[in-house]
């Protein structure tokens, strides 16, 4: 078996202490050498490590405050002089240098684990560190814990996370920064009894997260019960959730338990909770607050023991603002610790492994495999055995990694690039559908396989079909974007004109995206990542989601 290379850490710190300490406490890792030192002190020294894929470290340990000369200080390495203003500017740059460095790093390595070590405990700083996807490490207020051992433990934890499986059942984790953060939060929250809210756009895997990860990790002995509010008529919601007694409504011919009772001792997952009627919300709040449910038509309440996890496709705070969702229920769902599923466009680093995972499941399917085997036979290849490996090839793979495969499904490079650049508004679900359609076409409607000189069966994936599938997936987005147009100006000053145009574009995008700020961000800026900034700007422009609807 191939030995795994030792983990490589780049320490970026003006002081040598962190590197010295890690060298002592983590003798099994390699601290990258910078001109004979075990730490880099500036971007000038660190940049080379991000220029070539082969040199990128596994983890970066980054300090926040750097006392280095102006010529090395980001953002512009400009000599600052000796005036009072220059001295202030120098101090500010030095105090925040770690954030400037992280920003540069993120341009070249968007998902690399970075441990930011700092003495700050401020919310604006935390926000900034979070925006830059730092695996932030704040020296805690508990002085006893403020030693380097805590840092070494954190480095170990991040290195262990590299080894964590990519999937849990059908749930795909990947290794992106957003999912690393989610994995940590899930590990911390799953064993608690707290009601939880899972948020995120459609198709991101909220259901799999709850069913295949949260419930098993909860340690609860009872069953997992899923309930989708969108699939039950409003008039039957209460009965379905809490049960009913005979005669409670027309057709209630016997007593029936609701999903709360069915999930006793286990996990009740209430999906698309935004569709609950106000009456049902009130009953749900009672169930969460008092631990009891009352069957429809019954006079007695009965205790329940289900742990409740909910999910929403929309921003529930907006629903509260509109008056269609109870504020007290939202508070009870602990929105401050909500598990946010990132959109696929926020985690493009995960696409290669996600593709392999989807293709792997496709290849393991008995019907697909039998068909593939018949193509291999027809091409003159040896009989395909159950253990023979089939691989999706996108062009990123090392040739050595494909050596043992018996069959290759080859997607031309331009096709893969198109997939990586696509916005995927339907997220993983849509990505999976497109990839499975593509593989199915090669297996069931393609030209069969050709043997290459190593005797492997090569199936060509059809790029034209891929582009048609992507165009279909894009149709909704294109329609939305086409609706954006500039208004006829009425302003009399440049400042007013700018504002008028901005207000108009935000308003149009809001309607095109049907009030979904993540889609708005995609329409306006081409990425869902700026959702928060778009929302803030929307409010700052004096626009109101409630009034616009």
């Amino acid at each position: 078996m191939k030995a795994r290379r030792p983990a490589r850490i780049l320490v970026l710190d003006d002081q040598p202490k962190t590197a010295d300490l890690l060298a002592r406490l983590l003798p099994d890792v390699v601290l990258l050498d910078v001109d004979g030192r075990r730490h880099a002190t500036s971007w000038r020294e660190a940049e080379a490590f991000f220029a070539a894929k082969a040199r990128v470290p596994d983890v970066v340990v980054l300090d926040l405050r750097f006392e280095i000369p102006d010529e090395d200080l980001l953002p512009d390495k400009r000599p600052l002089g000796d005036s009072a203003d220059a001295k202030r500017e120098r101090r500010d740059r030095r105090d925040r240098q770690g954030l400037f460095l992280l920003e540069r790093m993120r341009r070249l390595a968007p998902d690399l684990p970075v441990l930011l070590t700092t003495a700050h405990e401020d919310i604006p700083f935390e926000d900034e560190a979070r925006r830059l996807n730092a695996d932030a490490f704040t020296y805690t207020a508990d002085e006893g814990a403020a030693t380097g051992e805590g840092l070494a433990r954190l480095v170990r934890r991040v290195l262990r996370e590299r080894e964590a499986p990519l999937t849990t059942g059908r749930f795909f984790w990947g290794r992106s920064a957003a999912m690393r953060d989610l994995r940590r939060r899930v590990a911390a929250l799953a064993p608690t009894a707290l009601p939880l809210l899972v948020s995120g756009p459609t198709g991101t895997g909220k259901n799999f997260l709850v069913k295949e990860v949260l419930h098993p990790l909860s340690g609860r002995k009872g069953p997992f019960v899923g309930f989708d509010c969108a699939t039950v008529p409003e008039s039957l919601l209460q009965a379905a959730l809490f049960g009913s007694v005979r005669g409670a409504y027309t057709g209630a011919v016997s007593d029936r338990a609701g999903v709360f009772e069915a999930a006793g001792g286990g996990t009740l997952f209430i999906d698309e909770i935004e569709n609950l009627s106000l009456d049902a919300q009130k009953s749900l709040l009672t169930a969460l607050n008092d631990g009891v449910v009352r069957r429809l038509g019954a006079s007695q309440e009965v205790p329940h023991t289900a742990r409740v996890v909910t999910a929403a496709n929309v921003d529930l705070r907006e629903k509260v603002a509109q008056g269609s969702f109870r504020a007290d229920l939202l508070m009870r769902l602990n929105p401050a610790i909500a598990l946010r599923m990132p959109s696929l466009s926020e985690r493009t680093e995960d696409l290669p492994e996600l593709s392999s995972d989807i293709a792997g499941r496709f290849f393991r399917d008995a019907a697909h495999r039998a068909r593939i085997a018949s193509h291999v036979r027809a091409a003159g290849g040896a009989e395909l055995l159950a253990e023979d490996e089939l691989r999706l090839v996108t062009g990123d793979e090392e040739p050595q990694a494909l050596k043992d495969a018996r069959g290759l499904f080859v997607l031309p490079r331009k096709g893969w690039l198109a997939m990586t650049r696509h916005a995927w508004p339907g997220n993983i679900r849509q990505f999976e559908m497109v990839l499975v359609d593509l593989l199915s076409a090669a297996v069931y409607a393609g030209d069969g396989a050709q043997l290459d000189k190593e005797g492997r069966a090569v199936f060509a994936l059809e790029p034209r079909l891929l582009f048609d599938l992507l165009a279909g997936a894009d149709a909704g987005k294109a329609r939305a974007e086409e609706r954006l147009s500039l208004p006829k100006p009425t302003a009399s000053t440049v400042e007013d004109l700018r504002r008028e145009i901005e207000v108009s574009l935000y308003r149009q995008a809001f309607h095109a995206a049907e009030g979904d700020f993540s889609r708005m961000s995609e329409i306006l800026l081409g990425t869902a990542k700026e959702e928060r900034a778009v929302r803030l700007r929307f409010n700052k422009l004096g626009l109101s989601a409630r009034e616009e609807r």
Partner: protein
Amino acid sequence: MPTARDESRKRAATRLKHDLGKYVRFSAPETRETEAGALRERLGRDLRETRKTAEATLDAPAVFAVWLEEDGALFTSAELDAITRPLARVEELLPRLEALELAGLVALDDAAAEVATACFAFHRLVSADVAA
């Protein structure tokens, strides 16, 4: 609303927490060394070589002196008392590090821990003032 002076005080407190509070016990294990040699070595590392600048290696009292020169005017001596008291003990014991017995080393380590605690508390206090 916090004034510019409040913000300067907060930033100064953060710098002290970072430069002195963080590094003064950076190498300390969770439970203190029981062997005098190991404890002495660690105290030397953290207290004699607390920070390095382009020009020199600074011990813990020198790091505080540099900070005091740059930012000290923003604070009264009473505000800094909780830091300066244990730091005076460090200043007294550190030059005799090689000669100290285990009890003396423990006293020095305790003083260093007190400096760290005081720096963190000082930062919290000044930040709370700004937030208020």
